[in-house]
């Protein structure tokens, strides 16, 4: 076992945004072990001030290119909450369908393009093309289908343009929905194929357990594996639910002396958000195929291995496809109606919460009587995971030190990637000095 280890990964690759890993081990003693975030702060909370209520989602969608639909939905829900705007059942369903397309897109991108190279011991997906051409092509196909699905509902793949307070500017035709349903039905076998490929190398996922708190949305009426509606729940909170408006009492953002990024904690030192958190809170509500995928990998409720977040994402990918097929049926049975959205701005403060692919996301805005924004606050999932990544590092380094410098670095990078961080979601992120 090497007694001296010095890891300084300046900008972890294959993650969205910029993060650093710094580890110093001298004579077998850990002197430093830190997860740092040097992303350039962009000050979105300051920038939204003075902007109109119907421009907010257009601005904050740019917080993140990968979860732009999620950010737009959270902002739109917050505006609607602030101004008491009601949304029709049809618009609500179409928005959820839009949101599911992003879950599939992001999960496929993450597991297929960013994580799979680690499992195959490759530096990127590019060398995998000749190694496993069929698998790569299947991943590309599912990713493209998810994007086409976003195009149909959101007007385009990234930064939606159909979403407005009160509803949608444009809805798909019934014919387009029927075609989407056919495409999704055909995608099921591709998803199973991807799961089989990942399963063949799942042994390379590090065996690592650390008990922590898992925070996500929960919906009880009707019980749903929810990404969009519901209240805040946690594995430490029993059956208790926290209302969305109280999210600041859940996130409890604080400054850490050790790191300069704002961290979050609720019932203990840190908590985790994301697919594994949603699974640990709602697993019994997954669709049949979602459950089957979890079973295939031995993923059970109460799992405490953060690397299994990748597997929970696969289960969710299956879930959103199956659930969407059913939702399209419901929409078509009822028939689509063209709805006119009419909104009169008024003063108020409101909050919106949805599950981003990488975890629970909160937005709050306040508006004056003419509908201009006077205050904005957002708390993004990666921010909520920082403290948990740090705590994982502290347990992981002694356990995996025997792998030596390269092995440990690789394992730590894999851990960061497992969280599917989205670091550009710059709100609340501070810059740190490079060591």
């Amino acid at each position, binding site marked *: 076992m090497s007694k001296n280890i010095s890891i300084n990964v300046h900008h972890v690759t294959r993650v969205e*945004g910029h993060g650093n890993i710094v580890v110093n081990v001298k004579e077998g003693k850990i002197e430093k072990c830190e997860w740092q975030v040097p992303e350039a*702060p962009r*000050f979105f909370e300051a920038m939204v001030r003075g902007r109109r209520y119907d*421009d907010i989602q257009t601005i904050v969608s740019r917080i993140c290119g990968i979860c732009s639909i999620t950010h737009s939905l959270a902002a739109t829900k917050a505006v609607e909450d602030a101004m008491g705007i009601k949304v029709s059942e049809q618009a609500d369903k179409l928005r959820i369908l839009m949101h599911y397309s992003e879950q599939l897109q992001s999960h496929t*991108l993450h597991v297929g*393009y960013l994580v799979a190279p680690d499992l195959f011991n490759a530096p990127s997906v590019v060398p995998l093309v000749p190694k496993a051409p069929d698998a790569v092509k299947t991943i590309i196909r599912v990713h493209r289908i998810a994007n086409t699905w976003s195009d149909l509902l959101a*007007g385009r793949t*990234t930064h939606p343009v159909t979403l407005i307070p009160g509803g949608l500017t444009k809805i798909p035709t019934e014919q387009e929905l029927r075609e989407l349903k056919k495409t999704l039905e055909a995608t099921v076998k591709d998803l199973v194929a991807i799961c089989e490929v990942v399963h063949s190398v799942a042994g390379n996922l590090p065996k690592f357990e650390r008990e922590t708190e898992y925070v996500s949305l929960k919906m009880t009426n009707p019980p749903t594996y929810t990404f969009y509606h519901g209240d805040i729940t946690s594995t430490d909170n029993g059956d208790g639910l926290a209302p969305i408006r109280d999210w600041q009492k859940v996130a409890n953002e604080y400054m850490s002396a050790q790191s300069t990024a704002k961290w979050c904690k609720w019932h203990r030192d840190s908590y985790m958000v994301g697919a594994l958190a949603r699974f640990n809170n709602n697993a019994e509500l997954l669709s049949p195929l979602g459950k089957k995928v979890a079973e295939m990998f031995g993923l059970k409720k109460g799992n405490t291995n953060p690397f299994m977040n990748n597997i929970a994402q696969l289960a969710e990918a299956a879930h959103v496809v199956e659930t969407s097929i059913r939702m399209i049926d419901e929409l078509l049975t009822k028939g689509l109606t063209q709805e006119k959205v009419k909104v009169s701005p008024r003063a108020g403060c409101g909050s919106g919460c949805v599950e981003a692919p990488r975890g629970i996301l909160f937005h709050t805005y306040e508006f004056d009587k003419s509908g201009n924004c006077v205050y904005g606050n957002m708390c993004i999932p990666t921010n909520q995971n920082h403290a948990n990544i740090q705590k994982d590092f502290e347990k992981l380094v002694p356990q995996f030190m025997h792998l030596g410098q390269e092995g440990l670095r690789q394992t730590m990078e894999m851990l960061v990637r497992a969280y599917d961080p989205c670091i*550009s979601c710059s709100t609340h992120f501070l810059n740190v000095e490079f060591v």
Partner: protein
Amino acid sequence: MTKPRVAIFDFACCEGCQLQIVNMEEEILDLIGAVDVVEWREAMSEQNREYDIAIIEGSITRPEDAKRLEIIRSRCKILIALGACATLGGVNKLKNNFDLNEVKRCVYGKDADMPHLETMPTKAVHEVVDVDFKIHGCPIDRKEFGMVIRALLLGKKPMVPDYPVCVECKAKENVCLYEYDKICLGPIIRAGCGARCPSNGFRCFGCRGYVDHPNVDAAREVMDKYGLTVEDLRQKMVLFGCEQGPTV
């Protein structure tokens, strides 16, 4: 013939434009065959200091980022600004509407004075170094990206439209959004997006920047026709138009 070496770098942005490159899906495999991608942090672990074409995403918001960009410029033959953050400064320029100390206090409260929070007025890439080509949009259009790269590989100058979004919108036979009381920037913004937003019932908010010679009189006529004021248009121009300032 050796393949041109391409490196992709990101600064302050949402990385959504890089995502559009990933979103080229099958086509990207052909592109990877024609060039040698030597560095792309979001998608690959490989890194390299030698490259012919540098693609820059994001805007410049810190002095150290300006320095990094200058180094990249000195190493490459061709520099491409990718997406609205790079070509215009993007939504990041909304920050420039405020006093920067106040902006920091608004977001970080009592911690606003920490040295690593230093920020400067947002700049587009061409405000820091020379830019050879701009790929417009927020996010970029993946077809246009493919077109520009193909043109460069063939040694040709990529053609970027210099007519307004209205031209493409009319060709799609959309009903003008002004008929629905919506203020759309189509008359003055550069086309090339296929009028994506107005075709989906959403106003153009100017992410591709102004056409080179906007027909200001025509835009004023549109505003007059629908009983709107120049101030109404000005309000809508700030999301992506900060850099150039209102020209109407």
